[in-house]
């Protein structure tokens, strides 16, 4: 199999518990095995410095984008994507606030490809949660996170890596003007309201 393949994507909280996970490989046949993997992976990576302190989101023209001031170093360099070998897999990971993002690949995978997936996921979540990337927001918008996971990797094959495109595929529905308000969930309705408000403020 020469095609780059992803084994799992994990989103854990600050204690190593699951927020949203998706596995694409049979190496973890049942739930207890998966949870054991998540726990020990979390413990191992706890101490490292993969935290992002200065990551900035900003709202521009009704859309939320990662903000890069001209002349400043890119956000990429500010926050650290860390990497480790664990149980003969390669894991790349990043932490922000109380959320921990992990992407796992095979031992001989191109590490940089794993990083693009991680970065795509990370940035897309940032866009979808409108800049407030923490556990509470994630749980309240779990549907968006799950859809996001669905749009990044399909059965282990990378589907999309550009965060804007991913977020666009997920979020376009929430602000679909055609759908009557009653069809949307409460959070989506609130999100729609927020959007409208923001737009009107900027006008």
């Amino acid at each position, binding site marked *: 199999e020469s095609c780059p393949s992803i084994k799992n994507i994990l989103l854990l909280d600050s204690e190593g518990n699951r927020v949203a996970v998706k596995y694409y490989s049979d190496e973890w046949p049942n739930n207890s095995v998966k949870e054991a993997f998540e726990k020990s992976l979390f413990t191992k990576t706890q101490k490292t410095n993969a935290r992002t302190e200065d990551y900035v989101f900003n709202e521009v023209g009704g859309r939320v984008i990662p903000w890069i001031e001209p002349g400043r170093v890119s956000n990429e360099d500010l926050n650290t994507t860390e990497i480790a070998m664990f149980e003969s897999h390669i894991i790349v990971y990043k932490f922000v606030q109380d959320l921990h993002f992990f992407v796992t690949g095979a031992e001989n995978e191109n590490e940089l490809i794993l990083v693009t997936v991680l970065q795509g996921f990370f940035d897309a979540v940032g866009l979808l949660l409108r800049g407030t990337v923490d556990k509470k927001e994630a749980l309240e918008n779990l549907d968006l996170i799950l859809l996001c996971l669905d749009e990044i990797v*399909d059965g282990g094959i990378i589907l*999309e890596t550009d965060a804007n495109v991913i977020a666009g595929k997920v979020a376009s529905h929430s602000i679909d003007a055609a759908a009557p308000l009653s069809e949307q969930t409460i959070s989506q309705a609130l999100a729609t309201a927020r959007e409208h408000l923001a737009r009107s403020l900027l006008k």
Partner: protein
Amino acid sequence: MGLRRMVYVIIKELSPSADEVIIVTSSLMKDMTSKTDMYRANAIRVLCRITDGTLLTQIERYLKQAIVDKNPVVASAALVSGIHLLQTNPEIVKRWSNEVQEAVQSRAALVQFHALALLHQIRQNDRLAVNKLVSSLTRGSVRSPLAQCLLIRYTSQVIRESTNDTQTGDRPFYDFLEGCLRHKAEMVIFEAARAITELNGVTSRELTPAITVLQLFLSSSKPVLRFAAVRTLNKVAMSHPTAVTNCNIDMESLISDQNRSIATLAITTLLKTGNESSVDRLMKQITNFMSDIADEFKIVVVDAIRSLCLKFPLKHRSLMNFLSNILREEGGFEYKKAIVDSIVILIRDIPEAKESGLLHLCEFIEDCEFTYLSTQILHFLGIEGPKTSDPSKYIRYIYNRVHLENATVRAGAVSTLAKFGAMVDGLKPRIFVLLRRCLFDNDDEVRDRATLYLNTLGGDGAVVETDEGVKEFLFGSLDVPLVNLENSLKNYDPSEKAFDINSVPKDVKIQPLAEKKATSKKPTGLGAPPPGPPSTVDAYEKLLSSIPEFASFGKLFKSSAPVELTEAETEYAVNVVKHIFDGHVVFQYNCSNTIPEQLLENVTVIVDASEAEEFAEVYSKPLRQLPYDSPGQTFVAFEKPEGVSAVGKFSNMLRFIVKEVDPSTGEVEDDGVEDEYQLEDLELVAADYMLKVGVSNFRNAWESMGVDFEHVDEYGLGPRDSLAEAVNAVINLLGMQPCEGTEVVPPNSRSHTCLLSGVYIGNVKVLVRLQFGLDGPKDVAMKLAVRSEDETVSDAIHEIVASG
């Protein structure tokens, strides 16, 4: 909308089969043709996950359209689904080649990536097609970095499979790979660099641009780049250490990297590429580093240091010092054991290091918290210490153990003292004094041992030659297996008659050393129990020794693996194990009866040895009963000329009395009928006289074997299927153990050297070097060099090959 999408996700998770969800599929099929692109894309993905062959043919038309759809999301969805479907319905997916081909030309970056992946999968068995695909794309434009990475991987595959001799100029497509080193995207640069380093038989010239790029990554601010680069360079260092030396400076700065994986990889790479002059400096840096990392990393470093020391034996002093220092620091059992094992191996393989190594070990046991390690070291000291120039040095250390440690260690120390006393006559008086003091120890075992040794060594402490018997007692292995002894002792009832050790089933334990090959991580260090299948060997020995007629045959040299003498699914299944003794062979026939309605009695095997003239049958042990589904054994023993590895062919006939059995009641009829059953022939070949015993350092063993009994000759093996096949055939013919991973023949090689070692009957160590070469397209030529401790054996090996 979001709800619909969530439903899609759920359906994919649950993955029902197509016939369970007809309603769902029909609505999905409607979505597949809807105007909304997102619906189409996701409906396709879901459908393809739950589809079966028939449904697939129905929707095939839509899928083909989707592949070339304007909307890239839809196209990607169809393509990716195609990749998955290729596993289950390959014939259907292959029909979409044309559409996929078109998609490869798409301007949308990821569509090209997915199309390329699918097309390659479809065509992957057609080497020419893949070649064409790669050729056209390397000249054309590839839009996404992911697609470029794929292309690099396929290009490497094409290069691997091309049968060009690399002598004739540059490899095909090398220029393309080298060009990718200048791509914008880091993932492409890295993929290309890695691909170059993994080329078969890559030359230094080809490696240089790749290594330059990797070197730049080493100093990147991003941990992922540093990690990827150092990991790749680590692998290159194994085969081309000189190519990596330019990076040494950058690597040294990585020793203090925050990411410990990176730091460890950097250190181990430096250890592989270091030359003699840099060793000292390296050791200094590593000393600081060791305290920072976890035990699992430390063990990796210790292994690398050991390899380094074996590579530069002259540096043993500083490396040994280093090992000794880290031994003194904090660490877990596995870690300390790894260090001790390394020191032991260095002592064994580098004679100049013996004295300092033993001293280091002595210093260690003064402060060792692990009883296991202390006792093993004491045992080792007992064997090696007396052979040194000044054994008395070690006495103090050993004797101190008697005072200061726990009972197990004290007992071990007493044994060690005795060994010194036995081997070094000059020390006897002092040893006696020390042993006498041990008589007052608290612990039973210690006192018992002291008493025992005092008596065996001769109680007056005079400086006399130790009786050979005593030496044998102290140093020889126990004549009977411990398990048997234990069992016999348990069964012994204390009575007038003393316990007779001769009554213990006497089979000398063969130590099939079978050390792991040098390529594996842990060569045996201290007191490693013989690995391999000791249970089978023991079982055979027990079995054979329980038969009185075989007791006089002596030591069992080798038992072969079972050889089937019947085909599968026959009424009676028989396989044979060939047991080789010095002057006899015993065939153990394992028989099974698969017919419930029959009971076989008095089962024997009639062996026709007319094609094995040197053998004479001496005994046949019948199997009394062979009921259904209860396997049993029958034996036939042959005498053969001693010391000669006689070969021959034996034809076999199973003879028995068969009685009818009523399967429901288990009743057996009284009358039986004599019958016979033909079995296949069995052959005794030269390889049966060879024990597979490996050596960890072939070169040392080869040099120390000496040329006295060397025999070298060349043979033409004629046309063979492949070099690998020829190599395997010879290895099997000789029945020897391949060393240092040399049984693996790299693909597309034109020559290969294979190193074999073994022990021949008569306990003669044999080493073989085979050099194979492809002479023309198919013919294989072979040069065989044999060294052994006995000339006849060397000649015998050549005989085997000449006649094989």
